[in-house]
């Protein structure tokens, strides 16, 4: 019987404590700066062009084959404004298949992709879950602004954020 | 826990009558035994007073170019020994004696090896499908000649054979 009443005492005690619930859509838990949200593409503000050259390395190393990339000649390179010979033409990520592992960010040679903190990208049809280039730049540039990431002008350097 | 060299000496001594070969898998000794005698060798390993390998850590089947290899990772809880036993089966006759009678824990490992590699463990009480569904017959997915399917979303059109039969009730 002692254990029985001990259990009742435990539940009574915890009833008197403050609830731990966070009412999600209204309030959010603080997110870690390292949070792995959906990947987004970054923008080179110095040249005003994408940092991505469409080199396909992320698509090759993606464990779930969720990235589709194509590249084209960079018109700005001909004008001499940019050091990037090639530039991304089309970029798609199938969000329903992405496992947010961050390998694409690790392998990228141009700091062109980053794990943003976007995480509420649910949708009602599979087609809507394919993030187009525009979506990716929208997420990436917004994140870039908030996190203060500056992509070096066509540097192609390998730096970890 | 014996240093590996001593362990090898001990194993050489015990498995001398088994026509065995000895090698190293990084930090443990492997003993390759002819496949007909593997069940016997396992029993010796389990019951020999200087080995007492009563704990089957793992049982793995591996396909090499010319053979299937079954690996028995053994461990002695009382003495702290570890060793691997290995047995090869040729590709045209992949049969290996079962060791379920030695360790009950070999049961599902062997069933798994049988359905994924097509290696028959003779003497196993119930060599049925374990992980795959019953209709998955005649193909052995972990063999190297089983292709990786192109990734495609599942739908009734792409995989009509996987439609489950039902009476619509």
């Amino acid at each position, binding site marked *: 019987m002692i254990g029985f009443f001990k259990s009742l005492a435990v539940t009574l005690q915890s009833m008197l404590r403050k609830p731990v619930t966070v009412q999600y859509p209204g309030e959010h838990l603080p997110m870690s700066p*390292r949070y792995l949200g959906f990947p987004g593409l970054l923008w080179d503000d110095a040249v005003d062009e994408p940092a991505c050259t469409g080199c396909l390395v992320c698509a090759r190393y993606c464990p779930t084959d969720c990235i589709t990339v194509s590249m084209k000649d960079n018109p700005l390179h001909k004008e001499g404004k940019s050091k990037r010979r090639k530039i991304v033409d089309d970029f798609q990520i199938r969000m329903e298949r992405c496992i947010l592992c961050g390998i694409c960010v690790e392998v990228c040679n141009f700091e062109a992709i980053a794990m943003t903190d976007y995480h509420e990208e649910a949708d009602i049809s599979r087609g809507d879950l394919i993030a187009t280039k525009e979506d990716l730049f929208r997420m990436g540039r917004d994140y870039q602004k908030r996190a203060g990431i500056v992509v070096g002008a066509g540097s192609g350097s390998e730096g970890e954020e | 826990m014996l240093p590996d060299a001593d362990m090898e000496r001990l194993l050489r001594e015990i498995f001398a009558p088994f026509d065995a070969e000895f090698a190293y898998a990084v930090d443990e000794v492997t003993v390759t035994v002819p496949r007909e005698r593997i069940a016997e060798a396992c029993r010796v390993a389990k019951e020999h007073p200087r080995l007492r390998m009563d704990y089957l850590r793992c049982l793995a089947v591996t396909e090499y170019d010319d053979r299937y290899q079954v*690996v028995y990772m053994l461990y002695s809880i009382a003495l702290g020994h570890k060793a691997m036993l290995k047995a090869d089966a040729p590709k045209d006759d992949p049969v290996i004696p079962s060791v379920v009678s030695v360790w009950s824990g070999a049961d599902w490992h062997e069933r798994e090896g049988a359905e994924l590699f097509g290696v028959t463990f003779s003497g196993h009480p119930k060599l049925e499908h374990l992980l795959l569904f019953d209709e998955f017959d005649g193909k052995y997915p972990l063999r190297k000649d089983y292709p990786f399917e192109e990734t495609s979303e599942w739908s009734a059109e792409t995989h009509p054979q996987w439609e489950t039969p039902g009476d619509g009730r």
Partner: protein
Amino acid sequence: MVAEADLQTVDMLLNMGPQHPSTHGVFRIVLTIDGERIVDAEPHIGYLHRGTEKLCERENYRQIITLFDRLDYVANFNNELVFVMAAEKLMGLEVPERAQFIRVILAELNRISSHMLFYGAFGTDIGVLATPFMYGFRERERIQQLFEAVTGARMMHSYFRVGGVADDLPDGFTAHTRALLDELKRGVQECDRLLTYNEIFLERTVNVGAITGEEAIDFGVSGPVLRASGVPMDVRVAEPYLVYDRFDYEIPLGKNGDCWDRFWVRIEEMRQSIAIVEQALAMMPEGPFQAPVAKFGFVRPPRGDTYARAENPRGDFGVYLVSQGENTPYRVKIRGPSFCNLMALKRMTVGHYIADAVVILGSLDIVLGEVDR
């Protein structure tokens, strides 16, 4: 009067699962029952089979880490650890000490969070209306917030790398962890007091699903289930890995090997894990967190095979890795502790009641992702 023997009775087949609230996923067990008593039990697995071992033969060593996250999806760090240990063993790689301490801390915290999940699920199995579940998840949430601060993900971390870890610990990690440990101590204490010596809980678990040490070893049972039967086998001591040989802790052992012992062993293990994390925090050296290996962890271990194992929350998790010197493994065999523990289920359930089957299954604490792979 008709004697019972004259009545024509038949045993009933009761199909439990794969859609059943207490099968912890998509496990199915076909029970043959005589009234309420179980005469025979036939487990069926494979509903979550994703072909991880086959996938491992296609992906490279960095990508496989993401696959291992998804095996035992409540003990992700521990799984990753075993795979990277296997690769490191083949390569003969010396991991920097700081990385080893980071791994120990994260793995032990993951053990606590996994046992907390067990605690919650077990309480629900035994019939308390979700209160242990909520308590367990309250503690789990705290641990996951720490994980998020370290790795950026709450569950699928892919944080360990061959040769170290992906990134150094964030600022303030030590303070955060110490605060967390204090909260966890209170939480474990509360969980303990809620159930462990409750009379009805004792009635439901003591002498239920008992298995002796010899039988458990015969079935290849490992982890808390084996230790509950009184067998002192803990991989952390049996085959020391990482820096586990520098800590002082205790290994709880049961005696009867029944559900209560398994429960108690896990509760105590949480306390011991807290002790280990405390010591590791105090002893953690500065230094590099990653050994110099191929870029991005795309390693090519030399030809050979090896077997690495570690003490997962559920038991002895092993990886048999065969490499042919390529950037993908030649063969990966995963030995899930739940897989082996589940083999003993039939032995444990026969002769008990239906209600006990649920409790016994809960006390094994299986994770189907690892059983079916």
